[in-house]
């Protein structure tokens, strides 16, 4: 089952609404609550990244019986150095924004921590594509 959402850059008041909708769906099909939590945290981070950095973007979530595959693609400035961006604590936020409690540089690392497969590709000046997979059963 596929669910699509359009995300507007700068629309902080609606950030998180798509991940909440996915949470509702996953609860209804009885996905274990710890896995729902991981998925929601990853989706929320990815969603907020678009709101905070891009002009606009799309989130496509494919829910399968045993896994969830999310693809978030945006039109925006892109990430020049993905490896650097994946480091915990790395942030492009100004000290002023950091003082407000944002931009701790935990967004991408947090997505990595909560997903089983993660792919990020980006073209500076055009946009970023983040796709990840989470399996509903813990790897034994």
């Amino acid at each position, binding site marked *: *089952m596929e669910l699509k959402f359009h995300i507007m850059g700068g629309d902080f008041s609606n950030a998180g609404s798509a991940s909440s909708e996915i949470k509702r769906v996953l609860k*209804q*099909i*009885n996905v274990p609550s710890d896995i729902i939590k991981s998925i*929601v945290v990853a989706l*929320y981070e990815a969603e907020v990244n678009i709101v905070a950095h891009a002009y606009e973007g799309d989130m496509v979530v494919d829910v399968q019986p045993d896994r969830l595959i999310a693809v978030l693609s945006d039109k925006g400035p892109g990430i020049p150095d993905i490896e650097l961006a994946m480091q915990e604590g790395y942030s492009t936020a100004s000290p002023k924004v950091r003082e407000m409690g944002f931009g701790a540089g935990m967004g991408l690392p947090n997505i990595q921590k909560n997903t089983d497969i993660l792919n990020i590709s980006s073209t500076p000046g055009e946009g970023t594509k983040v796709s990840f997979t989470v399996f509903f059963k813990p790897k034994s």
Partner: protein
Amino acid sequence: METKYFHHALRVVENQCIGCTHCMKVCPTGAIRVIDGLARIDDNRCVDCGMCLRSCPLKAIIVEQDDFSRIFKYKHRVALIPAVLIGQFPEEAPTPLITSILYELGFNKVVEVETGVSLLKQAMEEYMSQKTHPHPLISSFCPAIVRLIQVRFPALVEHIMLLKPPLDITALAIRQELYKSGALDDEIGIFYVTPCAAKIAAIKSPVGDKESPVTGVINMDTMYNKIYRVIKAGKEDHCVVPENQPLEKMAIRWTLTHGEANNFEGRCLAIDEIHNVINFLEKIENEDITNIDFLELRACDQSCAGGVLVQGNRFLVRERLKNRARNEARKNNTGMAPLIADNQEYLMKHIGLEELQARPLIHLTGEPADALRKMDLARRALKCLPHLDCGACGTPSCEFLANDIAMGKASIKQCFYISRLLEKQGVLDPDEAFTTLCHIWGKDKIREERWNTHFQYLNELLDKENNPDK
């Protein structure tokens, strides 16, 4: 078969319920359906918050209680009363008077529930200082909230503090005290005067505990009437009763909103009214809100002052309790009541709750692939529905109808709009549509003989509308 987890105190009185759907629409867990003209409560979804009882225009939802005369089966008859009971009466009826009246009604000991609060506060501080518990910590005070988290927010169950509420602590202390004086188990009757349905349910099937130390419950509205009658009779001389140590200021305010949250270090928030609580927990669950240390969550607006069985106006009850707390504070009374202090060691040993279980709602049953197929069906059905959430189909909203259809528990014909549309298209037989209607609203309510009496007037109305100039 789904396993039944909880005992419930809320009952639908069948000969009073007309299936009007008011309760169905306010239920925060979507536990109610109207079938054959009656509201039916799903035991596994209900958290005993009492919103349905509040919304019922016909008083067709009641809270079951123990018969008052049951207290006389016991040699030691203890009334365990919460501060909000006294808070309902005007200031002219002070605590000693109400205590006297309770003795005259047949009890031989009266204790305020909040007596155990001072000890609980210590235990909570200790619990909070242990860094191992996941934050935010959620108070276990309100049993409707504990159940709500078990069924709707299973991932947050581990945030609930595993400490007994004041009711259980005080009841345990009373039992211990009576044992010391040689009382036997079956001679002790501790009766709690409850402001809500959730407390009853919690006593009859305790969560996180094997057995409740409370023997029975009496509804606060019943007790209010009994006490009020005596006050109104204007008797001058009431029996003299042994005086309990007055409650501390903090204990008097404990059951009000902020009653817990105001006492602790760190970021402590108090949220009341169950829909507000749900909205907030959604955000906590998404990790949308973080860095909170403690949450005091109560199902009723104004907390226990707004309990479904409290007769007084909740804002006045709150005012009276605050005044009482202020007066007590002036007397500079602090410290633990002897009842608690003398049994402190025993109580601290038993203050913990066993681990709580999550009881997630079963939405769409079956294997993941099957659940996903049902989900897809539900989403497609929802697209066809009018999104009016009128409730006429017997489910709380179009979304619930769609889910019930996917689960095979409801028919698309239950929707009035769809049904009309299908009749117009010639694919639904009007008789069949009528049968579906009967299944929702009950045969009796729409049997033709009854409507025959209305038909004449209905015809007149139609005639008037069609010929406005006549």
